[in-house]
Structures are given as C-alpha cells and as structure tokens.
C-alpha cells in the first residue's frame, strides 16, 4: 500500500530548511510558494528519508483567481506519496519554475499545461505546444475559454 505521508510532518521538515516556502497545509497536500517550488522539490527528491524519485503526475486547475498546480510525488523505494501544490497568480503571463531538470517525466506534462492552461515554465528545455498547433489562439482548459 502506498502510504500517503502526513502533509504536516513533511511540511515541518521543509520548514526547517526553507522557513518561508510553505504557505498552507491541509490533510492531503502541502501548498508551497511558487518561488520556492523548485528548491522544495529538489529537497524532497534528494533527502534520503523522503527520496521522492518518481513524479507521478502534474495537473493544473484553473480557479479563476489563480491556477493551482498539483504534483503527486512518489518514492519507489519507500513506497510513499505526497501531494505538493503550488499556486500561480495572474492570468496574463503566469510563470512557474520547471521541474524537468529533476524529473524528466515532467517534460510532456509541463508542455501540455503550457499548451492547454497557458502557464509558462521557466527552464523547460523545449517549451512549445504539444497537442495543439503552434498558431493556436488561447488555452482551452482555462475556464474562460469558450
């Protein structure tokens, strides 16, 4: 059984390292500030007790005020999982750090989010539209796209 790690415990560990990174914690997920997303992810991946070496999925949800990104991290060795969330404000040019250098599995998923939601990932090696063509106007998975 994949154990969902208690978000509170992990958040405390993160807080020791990055005091300002975590903005909100609930039972399932840790919400981190988008500026410190990359550092937190790197920490979670490399810390031996956590060792999140497998990025299961990335999802992005449009809540009008902000975009919420959901990262589910899994550790193959320890068989535990954690949901990491971050928020990205502003609809014109939302930007987040890319996690491709940590988990290459993020490659196509970030491209897809860029394509369909319109979030730019800084540091992505090949950020272009993946399922829609290059000249496409708009981002279909945004709630205001009709």
């Amino acid at each position: 059984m994949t154990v969902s790690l208690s978000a509170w415990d992990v958040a405390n560990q993160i807080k020791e390292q990055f005091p300002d990174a975590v903005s909100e914690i609930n039972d399932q997920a840790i919400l981190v500030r988008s500026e410190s997303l990359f550092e937190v992810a790197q920490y979670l991946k490399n810390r031996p007790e956590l060792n999140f070496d497998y990025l299961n999925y990335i999802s992005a949800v449009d809540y009008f005020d902000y975009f919420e990104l959901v990262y589910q991290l899994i550790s193959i060795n320890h068989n535990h999982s954690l949901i990491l969330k971050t928020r990205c404000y502003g609809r014109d040019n939302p930007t987040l750090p890319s996690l491709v250098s940590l988990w290459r599995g993020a490659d196509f998923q970030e491209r897809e989010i860029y394509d369909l939601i319109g979030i730019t990932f800084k540091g992505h090696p090949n950020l272009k539209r993946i399922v829609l063509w290059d000249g496409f106007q708009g981002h279909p998975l945004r709630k205001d796209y009709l």
Partner: protein
Amino acid sequence: MMAIKTEPFVLNIGPVHPSTHGVFRMRATLDGEVIVNLEPVFGYLHRGIEKLAEERTYTGIIPLTDRLDYLASMSNNLAYVLAVEKLAGISIPERAEYLRVIIAELQRIASHLIAVGAFLNDCGAFFTPFLYMFREREKIVDLFEMLSGQRLLYNYMRIGGFTQDIPDEFLPALDKFVKQMPSFIDEYDYLLKENEILLARAKGVGILPKELAINISASGPVLRASGVKWDIRKVDPYSIYDRFEFDIPTGTAGDCYDRYRVRVEEMRQSLRIIRQAMEQLPAGPIRSEVPHLVRPPAGEAYGHIEAPKGELGFYLVSDNSIAPYRCHIRAPSLLNLTALRDMMIGWKIQDAIIIFGSIDITMGEVDR
C-alpha cells in the same frame, strides 16, 4: 571509421505510417540509416477529452473514457469510476468488485495481445503473430460483447457497479477461455520466443535503464521491463487486488525483448487472477444505490489503476455540481514516450520502429 562525408537528412515517420500505431509522427534526423536526432510530434488525435469532461455529467464521462485507450476501454472505465467513487465516497457490492477484477484482467490480456502482436509485426513477422493474437483477443471481445453489447467501446462500468449483471452464459464461456488460453500462450511462445532473428533484433535494443525509467515517470510493462518491481496492483492495491495471489514479472535489461516478455508473462499472471476470482465470485447485487446524477461533495480525488499500458489515473476536482470541475487524466502512454528520443538515438530506422512498437502506446490516450 570511414572518411565518407555524409549529410544528415530529416525523415518524417508518420503521421500516416503503418507502424506508428495511430497518427503519431516522429521527426527523425538520419545519417544514412542511423538516427541522430528524433522529435516526437503529437496532437493529431487531440479531442480535448479533459475539456469535454468538464461539461458532462459524471456518468456521461464514462463513454468518453472509452475513447482514451480504445484497446483497453474497460480499464479506462474502471480507473474513472474508481476515482469518482473515491470522490463521492461510494462503496460497491462485493460481486461487482470481483467482476471488476475479472474484467480488468481480461482487458489486460486483450491489450497485451495486441501489444505483443503489433510488436512482432513491427519486427517483420508478416502478420502471423498479429493475426494469432487477434484471434485470442476476439474471444475476449466476444465475452465483453456479451456483457456490454459492444465490441470496442464498452461503456459497461458505472459509478457504484455495472449497468447489468452478467448473463448466465458468461461464466461457462469465461471458464472455457481460461482453460484454452494457457496452451495458446505457450504456442505463441513456441512460435517466436526463441527465434534467432527476433533475439538478434530485440535483445539489447532500445535499452531504457532503470534510473531513467523512474525519472521519466514510466509505468506499466515499460517500467517493469527495466527491472523496477512497481505494479499498482501490488504496491497500492485498489479494488480487491490484495485478495489474490500473483507475481509481478520484471525484466532485467530494459530492452525491447524484455518488454515483450514481461507482457507475455503478465498475461499468464492475469489468467491466474481470473481463475482465483472466478472461484471466489459471490452472488449478490452488482450495483449499489447511486442517484442518477451523482453530486460528489466539493473536493478532489485521484483514482488510479494499473492499466495495461501503465498507471492510468484520473484526478478529479468537484465543486458539488453534476459535472466535474476539472478532470485530469494521467495517461501512461504519453509519459512512457518521454524517453523515446534517448532510446532511439544511435539505432537504425528498423530498430526505431520496434522500439516504438515495444513501448506500446495508443494514440487515443497520448493525445486525448
């Protein structure tokens, strides 16, 4: 080695090509026959299922999920209904749980049959394994037709159970199938498992190392062929998989041959699970009382299963209406393609085709 000056050229493999298993395009830069660069191009089958799901009722999405990985519709249905049941807190009757396991494993066999057949066909065995595999799949499709009334897009599972109970003639037919199938798998192993040409073509070709496989979020047979013992049915048992005994076949080298072998072995394990589930199948209702229009409480849930192609997951966000606020699909086919370039560089076009075939993708799921 030789001082002949060569000039690389670009070859578009696909989108219309017999071996790209759909409308997929690989923009390959070749030096002679050797691939020096490769870029996958997606999107020819994009239908916006995630967007469409936002304006359909929870039940109305089930036909849409059929169209993801259309070779394993039942698995898609299962992943989706599990996610919704998790979101809405619906429990399902015991009999339905067992039937779901039987059906999901049958679907796994059917999907792996196509994967193996298509892979061997890509290797150049002129349609023989493909047609043999299709014959076996036909038997499974017959069974599914008996259950749901259709042969490809079943739309059989419902939130809380199934549409209808299984007909009386289902179990005898399934029993017959389960008895027949092992000898057929043996025969197909006899056909090509030790074939020298196949060994030369597939062994050591398209190696996906263990670390890379984990790093690219590969799942399913692709991950297991690289030697990672990671099967959602074992590591995070959903439904009632913890009640059955089965092994997880893994490969060692992570090459095309291992991926082919892992699939064949998984078929045997699936038969094992079906046999156990048939013995334990209880009587009773097959659907719990679920309102016609499901209104899950606001919140989010991620339901995942070990689909034939890998981990298929649905991330659903509900806002307490009859349609999900967001429906994200974790498509194994797409993620397994991440390392395509790394696996193919340095190999010849012929190898590229079989490497691609051994990953086993369905474009309906890649593009969604």
